[in-house]
C-alpha cells in the first residue's frame, strides 16, 4: 500500500497508544463515556492504521490472533457471562456483582455486565478487522 515514512513512524507510536486508549474506553465504560462497542471500534481502528502504514500481513502478525477467532472468543465470553446467573438460581442474564480491592486502583465493583462488555469489545473488533483485512487482501 502506501509507503510514507512519516505515516510509518507516526503509526509506530500511535497504534499502541490507540490500542491502550481502546482498553481505557472499555474499562471505564460503565461509568463514563466509553464501553465495549466504542472500545472495539477503536482497537480495530488502531490495527487498520497499522495495516495502512505497513501492510495487512504485518498488521495480522501484530494482532497475533486471527480476527475470526476474536469473534468466537467474544461471543463465548458474552454468552458465558449471560449464563452465569443461572448457576446462582437467578433468571437468565441477571447481573451479579463482586467488590474487589485492587492494588493502586482501590475498590472496584466487577460484575457480569462488565464481562459481557468485554465480549462485545472482542466481537466488534473481530468483525471489523475480519471485513477490512479480507477486503484489503483482495
Amino acid at each position, binding site marked *: 500500500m502506501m509507503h510514507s515514512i512519516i505515516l510509518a513512524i507516526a503509526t509506530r507510536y500511535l497504534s499502541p497508544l490507540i490500542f491502550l486508549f481502546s482498553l481505557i474506553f472499555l474499562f471505564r465504560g460503565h461509568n463514563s463515556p466509553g464501553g465495549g462497542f466504542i472500545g472495539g471500534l477503536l482497537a*480495530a481502528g488502531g490495527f487498520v492504521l497499522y495495516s495502512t502504514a505497513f501492510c495487512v500481513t504485518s498488521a495480522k502478525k501484530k494482532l497475533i490472533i486471527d480476527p475470526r477467532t476474536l469473534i*468466537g472468543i467474544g461471543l463465548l465470553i458474552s454468552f458465558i457471562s449471560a449464563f452465569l446467573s443461572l448457576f446462582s438460581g437467578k433468571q437468565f442474564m441477571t447481573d451479579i456483582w463482586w467488590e474487589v480491592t485492587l492494588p493502586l486502583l482501590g475498590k472496584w465493583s466487577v460484575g457480569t*455486565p462488565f464481562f459481557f462488555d468485554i465480549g462485545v469489545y472482542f*466481537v466488534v473488533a473481530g468483525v471489523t478487522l475480519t*471485513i477490512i483485512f479480507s477486503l484489503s487482501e*483482495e
Partner: protein
Amino acid sequence: MGLLIAVLICFFVAILAPFIYRLGRQYTGWIIAILPFILFGLFINHIKLISSGEVIAVTYKWIPSLGINLSFYLDGLSLLFALLITGVGGLVIIYAGRYLAGHIFIGRFYLYILLFMGAMLGLVLSDNLFTIVIFWELTSISSYLLIGFNNEREEARTAALRALLVTGIGGLSLLAGMILLGLTENGYKLSILINSGDLIRNHPYYLAILILILIGAFTKSAQVPFHFWLPGAMEAPAPVSTYLHSATMVKAGIYLLARVSPLLGGTEIWFYTLTIVGMITMIIGVVLALQQHDLKRILAYSTVSVLGILTMLLGVGTELAIQAAMVFLLGHAMYKGALFLVAGIIDHETGTRDIRKLGGLWKLMPMVGIAGITAAVSKSGLPPTFGFVGKELFYESVIAVTWVTPLLTVAALFTNMLMFATAWISGIHPFIWKTGGIPKKPHKTPFGMWIGPLILAIMGMICGIVPGFIDQSIFSSAVSAVTGSHVSVHLALWHGFNPALALSAITVAGGFCIYYWWYKIQRVVCRLNIVYKFMPDNLYKLSLNGLLQVAKVQTAIIQSGYQRYYLLTIFSVTAILVSFMLFKLGGIHGSIGLHTMKFYEVALGLFMLGAAAIAVLSSTRLAAVAALGVVGYSMSLIYILYGAPDLAVTQTLVETLTVILFVLVVYHLPRFSKLSSSASRIRDACVSLACGGVMTALVLKAGNIQFHQPISEYFTKNSALLGHGKNIVNVILVDFRGFDTMGEITVLSVVGIGVYALLKLKIKPE
C-alpha cells in the same frame, strides 16, 4: 416428576446415542434397549395404582403467560399407550441392532428412533393442548428422518417428504383446532376440559373444532383419503415400519380420537363421520392389501384397514365398541409388530419380499416361522389368540348398533374375511408350501433378530388364552378414560354360542377360500380398483407440482436479483408507509425554529448540505465517499454541541471505518460511468428525494408527539442503583437491554463471517 424425566431422558439418551454406538459397536442395540425396558418396567409398576382409578398429574410451568405448561397426566389410556411405546420400542431397538448391522448411519438411527420414542411418550402423557401439538409435530419430524433413513435412495426421500407433508398439514389443522378449543375459555388442560364436554358440544365453535382435530387425526392415522402416505413409507427399514407403522405413530391419531372422545364424541356428526370414514378406510385398505405382492405393502395396507376399524369403533362409541377398539389396538400392535419384523427378517435373509417367490422357509428359519405363523393366526382371528378376542368383540359391538347393523355387519364381515386372507398370505404362506426360487440362501437368523417378533407373537397368544390377567388391570382403566365413566372390563376367550361366533365361522370359511383362490381373485381385484389406488396420490402430486410452479413464477417476479431494484422497493415502500402514517396522525407539525439557532449551528448545517450535494454530483466515487465522510464527521460535531460525547465518539469511529471500507471497496469497482437511462435516473432521484423528505418530516414530527411515557426516566433513576454504572447508555446496552445486545453481536458475527466467506469465495467465471 417421574413423567417429565421419562420423556426428557429419551431425548437426552437420543443425543448421546451416536457416541454410545462408538463405544458399544455391535452391542449398542442391547445397551440402548435398556432405557425403554426400564421405562416399561416403571410403567408396569404403575398399573396397580392406575387400575384402582387413580391418575398421576404433574405440571411444570413453561410459558405460563400463554397457558402453555408441561402438564403430564397418566391414566389408563396413556398407560396402555406408554406400555406399547416402551415395550415394542425396546424389542425394535434390539432387532435394529442386528438388522442394520454395518449400516453406515446406524448411530444416527438410534438417535432418530429414541427421539421418536420421546416424542411419542410425550404425546400420550401430555395434558396441555399445546404440548400435545408440539409432541405431535415432533413425531412427524422424527418419522420424516426415519422414513428417509436410507437417504441415498430417491424413493425413500420422496416417501419421507410425502409423509411429512401429509401429517404436517394435519398437525397444523390440529393446532388450529386446539387453539379454537382454547378459545372456548375452558382452560388448556385436557383432563379438566373433559369435564365440560357438554359446554363444548353446544359451543358455536364445536363443528370447526371437530373438523380440524379430525383432519389431524385422520392424516396421522392414514384414513381415506389420506391413506396413501403409509404404504409409501414402507421405504423405511423394517424396524421403523414396525415401530412407526404398526405399534405407535399411526396409532397416535387413534389415541387422539380416543382422548377427545369424551369431549367431542357422542354427537351425530361424530358418529357419522368416524363410522363412515372408518368403514371406507377398512374396506379400501384391505382390498388394496389383497392386490399387493410385496410383503411389507400387504402389511401396510392391512394396517390402514385396521386403523379404519379402530376409527369406526371409536365412532360407534358404545362401551362395547370402545372395549373392542382397545383390545383390537393392543392385539394389532402385537401381531402386526411381529409380522413386520418377520417380513424384515425374510427380506434380510432371502433378498426378496415378493410373496410369489417365497415359500418353504419353515425348515430354514424355524424360530422365525413360529413367530410369523403365531402372529398370522392372531391376525386372522383364530382362537386361542388375542386377535380372536378382539374380533369377537368387534362383531359383538357392530351387531349391537341397532339401526345401521346390517350395513356395518356386512362391511365388518367382508373386511375380516379379506383380513384373514392377507394374514395367511403374509404370515403363513412364506413358511409353508415350496419355495418359488429365492435370490439368496438364508443363513442362520441371529438371536437378536428373532427374539423380538417371537416375544410379540407369543404375548399375543398368552393374552388370548388368559385374557383375565390384563382385562381388569389395564383395559378397565383405559376404556374408562375413553368413555368418561367407570367401566369394568371382563375379557374371555369363549363367549358362548352367539351371533358373533357364527360370523367368525363364516369369516374363517370365506377367508380361507379367498386365500386358496388368491391369484385368481387378485387379478379381478386389480382391474377393479385402479380408481381408488391413484386418486388421492395423484392429487397430492398435482398439488405439490402446482405449488412449486407458483413458487417459481412468484420468485421470478419478486426476486429480480438486482440490488438496485431491491433498494428501490425498500425505499419507496418505506416512504409510502411512513407518509401514510404521518398524515393519519394529523400531518407535519413542528417548526425548525431558525431564530433560536446559534450561528455555528447554521454554519454546520450549511456545511453538511454542501457536502451532501457534492456527494450526489461528484463524478468520481472517491470524491463522493470523502464528501459523505464530511457529512458524518459534521454529524458528530453536532453531537458534541448537544452534549452527547458517547454518540460523538461512536459516530467518529464508525465514520472513519466506513470511509476506509468504502475506499477499499471502491478500489475494486470499475470506473464511474453512466450506464442507466435518464428516465431511470429521474425515477431514482424522485424516490430518494421522497425518502429524504419523509425522513425530515418524521424527525420534525417525532419531537412533537408522545405515544407512551418515556422510559428514559426509569433508566436515569435506576442506572446507578440497579446497574452499578453511571453511564446510562452503557448500562442499557450491557444490562437493561443486554439481551438485545446479545442478539446484535450474534448477528454481527454472522455478518462478519458471511462477508469473509463471500470475499474468499472464488467462483470461476463460466
